[in-house]
């Protein structure tokens, strides 16, 4: 089915499935098929923040005091997070918007992606403060083998879905030849790709950040790199919300509360979905090994970090109806919770380095003189 930016057929958005129904026409939020996405939009917008509002200048002094292995840990994590948010800042839009059928879900996807771009911008803010020229760090992201391996796995399911959608929307169902390769395109196959892709995104939001978060907060426990930690707390809060949305989508499908065919696919692809999650867990653990290859940091080592990933994974697998394959029963890093709760995450306005956010306020101060020519 060809995509149209404004579907002129009358549709009933209350009867559409989340994806692969009619394209959305009117962006209306007075009624919702799945209310949760409207609530997530409101919550996400209430979290709005700007990287520049967080003062990271003290981090420069701290960074000089770090040992070489600690510098490696800090910078590598920033590179990995930059990769993750580069992908997330565009992919939900490109992969999901052409096939979404509910206005509230369409807007949630756009809102979600937009916040990922704030995360990306914050890494530039952090790195600019540490280095006169951060180019070397950014350039290494497409060269570093460890990061590339992860990039392959993260983008694969998105790319697969995007390509199949393009074929379907331009050429319809059938077997299509592209560059000497043949591709079978039908709705069932597309829905399968969609299901696997959503599982891969869910795993990304669920576990892929947590090794890096733990390192950041371990520095903060030693009162180091606290500007960075403040930013990462804001990011972690957003990521938890994103995770909630992918969990809702997967559960709506699996419980037959949306498209009945997706419930069948969820059953059929159960093992594959589980493997996607476990593979993300495995990669996070390998990331911990890579980080600590030159030596560890105070308060953290590879083993405890891997246990923490398993602990988080158990919870998050259970949330989408999977088993809990890991032994670890209690939280190996209880202090992490102090950084992951949403109390006190707000940035203080007086911390701000720039004051452009006041512009709106100034403009709205209108005096009587401004209306001089009016007869009231």
């Amino acid at each position, binding site marked *: 089915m060809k995509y149209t930016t404004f579907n002129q057929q009358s549709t009933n958005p209350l009867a559409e499935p989340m994806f692969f129904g009619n394209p959305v026409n009117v962006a209306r939020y007075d009624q919702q098929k799945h209310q949760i996405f409207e609530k997530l939009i409101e919550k996400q917008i209430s979290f709005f923040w700007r990287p520049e509002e967080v003062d990271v200048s003290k981090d420069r002094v701290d960074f000089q005091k770090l040992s070489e292995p600690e510098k490696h840990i800090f910078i590598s994590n920033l590179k990995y997070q930059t990769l993750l948010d580069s992908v997330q800042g565009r992919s939900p839009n490109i992969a999901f918007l052409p096939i979404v059928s509910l206005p509230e879900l369409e807007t949630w996807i756009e809102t979600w992606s937009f916040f990922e771009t704030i995360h990306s911008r914050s890494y530039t803010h952090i790195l600019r403060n540490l280095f006169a020229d951060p180019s070397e760090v950014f350039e290494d992201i497409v060269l570093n083998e460890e990061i590339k391996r992860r990039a392959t796995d993260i983008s694969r399911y998105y790319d697969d879905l995007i390509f199949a959608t393009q074929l379907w929307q331009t050429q319809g169902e059938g077997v299509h030849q592209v560059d000497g390769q043949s591709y079978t395109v039908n709705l069932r196959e597309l829905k399968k790709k969609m299901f696997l892709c959503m599982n891969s995104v869910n795993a990304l939001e669920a576990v892929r950040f947590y090794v890096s978060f733990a390192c950041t907060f371990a520095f903060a426990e030693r009162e180091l790199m606290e500007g960075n930690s403040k930013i990462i707390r804001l990011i*972690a809060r957003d990521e938890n919300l994103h*995770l909630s949305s992918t969990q809702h989508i997967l559960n709506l499908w699996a419980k037959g509360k949306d498209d009945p065919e997706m419930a069948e696919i969820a059953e059929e692809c159960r093992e594959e979905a589980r493997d996607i999650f476990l593979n993300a867990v495995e990669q996070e653990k390998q990331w911990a090994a890579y980080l600590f290859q030159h030596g560890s940091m105070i308060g953290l080592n590879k083993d405890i970090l891997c246990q923490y990933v398993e602990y988080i994974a158990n919870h998050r697998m259970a949330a989408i109806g999977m088993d809990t394959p890991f032994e670890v029963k209690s939280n190996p890093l209880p202090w992490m919770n102090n950084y992951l709760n949403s109390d006190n995450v707000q940035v203080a306005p007086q911390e701000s380095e720039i004051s452009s956010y006041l512009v709106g306020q100034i403009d709205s101060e209108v005096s009587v003189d401004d209306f001089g020519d009016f007869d009231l």
Partner: protein
Amino acid sequence: MKMDKLYIIHLDEQTQLACHKDQTLLENLEAHKVEVHFHCREGFCGACRTKLIEGQVEYITDPLAYIDDDEILPCCCKAKSDLKIKLS
């Protein structure tokens, strides 16, 4: 302490905890040193997801995290009766 301010939380056959109805369930469990997983404490991350076997709760914040019909989010609800719960 007035009795009408308290409910009982049954964790298992042996464990019964007194619970203040003006505090969240999570705060109550923490006061009794029971380890409950949490992140946001605001109902959107799902970390505190818990099975409710018996009893009623009321939410002080609209829960946004995914929960099943028989589950509750202790971080943003208060007990409305004695409760039987099963921690994950």
